[in-house]
């Protein structure tokens, strides 16, 4: 195999479409999901379907953990033989220790350039960066292409319940969201910081409306994708609606993996995008 100039590495929370992985030779390092004493590698040991079945049956919520520095070092070490450098694009440091592990892993492969990108985001927003980076001419322009977009990444999501996100502790503490005896459908946004509460409609239909309204406020966009956790019909509805408004933008549909699914719970629908 001819030495390529550089390669892209990411982690399983990018929910990278399989086609892109194959086309660009992107390496995916799995995070881990722990159900009690059983540990699974995200996207490797457990399909999405299996995961949500286990999630529904689990007495207590699973825990998730970042890959170890060694996991990253192993991948970088292998790639060292195949290319001249790596851009490693990861789950945000605002959400996970994954970036930290990647940096430590990079230090272990001295003399081989590994540029770690802290996306401060998750899922398809990361996947878009992976694709854009992979299409760059060289490592430096790949890193630059990622960095100039970091402030424009956003994820909006409608959850079916606050329960999972609340247990996961990644949402900005909003006492009045967690004290409610009334059920509502949280709409949250991730834009470089903690997950922010945006809206709490009481019905799903209104939630989908709210999701789209908040998205429209961020137009125009360079890229957009619709993600879902066990909600393909709603995701398709959202895609169709958006496609009408944005005929020139390709709109992907993706499925959230186990790690992200642990925090969103089933029924989540999200929009991942890069603002223009």
């Amino acid at each position, binding site marked *: 195999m001819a030495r390529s100039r550089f390669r892209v590495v990411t982690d399983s929370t990018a929910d990278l479409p399989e086609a892109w992985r194959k086309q660009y030779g992107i390496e995916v390092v799995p995070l881990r999901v722990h159900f009690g004493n059983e540990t699974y590698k995200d996207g490797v040991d457990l399909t999405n379907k299996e995961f949500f079945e286990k999630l529904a049956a689990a007495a207590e919520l699973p825990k998730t953990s970042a890959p170890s520095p060694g996991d990253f070092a192993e991948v970088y070490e292998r790639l060292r033989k195949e290319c001249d450098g790596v851009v490693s694009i990861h789950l945000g440091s605002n959400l996970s220790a994954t970036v930290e592990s990647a940096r430590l892993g990079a230090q272990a492969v001295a003399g081989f350039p590994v540029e770690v990108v802290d996306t401060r985001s998750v899922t398809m927003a990361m996947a878009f960066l992976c694709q854009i980076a992979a299409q760059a001419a060289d490592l430096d322009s790949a890193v630059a292409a990622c960095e100039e977009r970091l402030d424009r990444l956003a994820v909006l999501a409608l959850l079916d319940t606050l329960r999972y996100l609340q247990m996961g502790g990644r949402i900005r*503490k*909003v*006492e*009045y*969201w967690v*004290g*409610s*005896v*009334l*059920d*509502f459908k949280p709409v949250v946004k991730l834009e470089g910081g903690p997950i*922010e*509460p*945006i*809206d*709490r*409609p*009481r*019905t*799903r*239909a*209104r939630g989908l409306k709210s999701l789209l309204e908040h998205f429209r406020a961020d137009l125009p966009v360079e890229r957009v994708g619709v993600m879902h956790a066990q909600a393909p019909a709603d995701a398709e509805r959202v895609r169709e609606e958006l496609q009408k408004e944005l005929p020139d933008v390709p709109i992907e549909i993706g499925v959230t993996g186990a790690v992200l699914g642990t925090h969103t719970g089933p029924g989540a629908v999200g929009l991942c995008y890069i603002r223009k």
Partner: protein
Amino acid sequence: MKTESSTSSRMRPEVVDGQLFKQALLGSLSWLTSNQEEVNRLNVFPVPDGDTGTNMLLTLQSAVEDIRESEAREISKIAALAAHGSLMGARGNSGVILSQIFRGFAKHVQGKQQLTPAELADALEEAANAAYRAVIKPTEGTILTVAREIGKAAKAAAAESNATVNSVIRAAVRAAKAATDNTPTQLAILREAGVVDAGGYGLQVILEGFLRTVEASDADQLLKAPAAAKAGPAQAALELPEEGWGYCTEFLIEGGDMDVEKIREEIAAMGNSALIVGDPDLIRVHVHTNEPTKVLAYASGIGNLTKTKVDDMSKQHRVILQGATPGQNGASAPKAEAAAAQPRQNGVGLVAVAAGSGLSGIFKGLGTDAVVEGGQTMNPSTQDMLKAVESVPYQEVFLLPNNANVILAAGQVPELTKKRVHIVPTRTMPQGIAAVVAFNVGRPAEANQAAMEEAAKQVQTIEVTHAVRDSRAEGVRVKKGDVIALINDKLKHSGQDYGEVVSDAVRGIGPDGYELITVYRGREAKDADLSQLTEALQRDFPNLEVEVQDGGQQHYPFIVSVE
């Protein structure tokens, strides 16, 4: 008329000064006290919120509270005190309008020592104008019309060459009565129910009391005392301010099956200015007594006491025992503390009016910083709401009245505080809940206001209760005891059981496009009623989700929201 002796010169005054105005207002208070039930009974709507008389009385009482101690001779001073007091104590729509009447009057007499008949007439006219200005959509056939006719008649009488203070007020009383009697021709809802407007009648009674003091002997010829009046009001007016006042004692009794009449009699016997209102579950007590401990001991034998307040009126020394005896359902309190623990991004607080422990808890759980107790039959006063607004740790506050009859009183709060207060004019509890749900800490107040008002508009409210008498309103004929449903404040359906009536109401709203029915269970609802209702809803609307919450509200066995 005969020549006046010096002692009776007060009865035929040439001018109105501060002390005469004070005595006259005390006369009004006394006369309204005697007629309170009569005013309450005029309530036109077949739901049990007959509290117009009580609200006006509480408002007037608050107006008079501030002037009792005053020896001021200047009418401007007494009028200003009455305006301030009534504003602070304003309850219900009629109460708030009454406070605006006082305010307009006070503004007009600013700087004046005393009023000539012509000046008095001008002030009465200006008082009515102020009341009109205070109401966003003035409705004819209400207290406003009566106030205006009072002003007009006073002006006409003052223009007569031999005009006196008496002739002006007498003309005003006559006009008030005529205007009140005429209200059914102006408002269809009064016509259908066969009554005159309660607020208008209340104002008429107040003015009658005023006249009775100013002109005790002549008044009896002019006015026929209603049957309800027991003691001679003019005499009572003189008695009222003479004695020592002791302690102003106020509290709520929470209990079950309480005998309101008996408790009223017992407590009234322990003091004066007794005002005991409520129902078998909750009674609000206000009494002036020299033995507050005796009153409290008696009441604590009946039920749980809350909101206990004892003011030593001579020392103006206030002891607040609030919270010393928590109510039956104190579960909501800790949540409120938790909610207040962290400052908010946008620095905006939330205050809501809620009736019922369950509803209070829901509001607090949703992030409401302070909940003012009150609702359908116990409209909170402007001051109650002001206190709550002042108590939250934010300089900008949203205030949600959650009841059509509280909106006006809430509207007075912004100008009484340095804080920026925004009113979201919610008319029902579910509207308030929808508005609070839409509140977002990441947005400034203006954006929240729009979102909250929009959210309130989208929820449909069905209030379910029993008709208190045979009636006909909004074209729906009801018999006493019928289950009735009000959709967004308007009587729409009646029938024999909860399930049938609520299903009809949901159908009336048109369930397409809605997803969720929330049933807030009231205090009076039995388990069997609840299951009958939820089964009917699940059967009739299989596509809608039905959620049950404990509302704990009185008078409405169920409040149902559809969204």
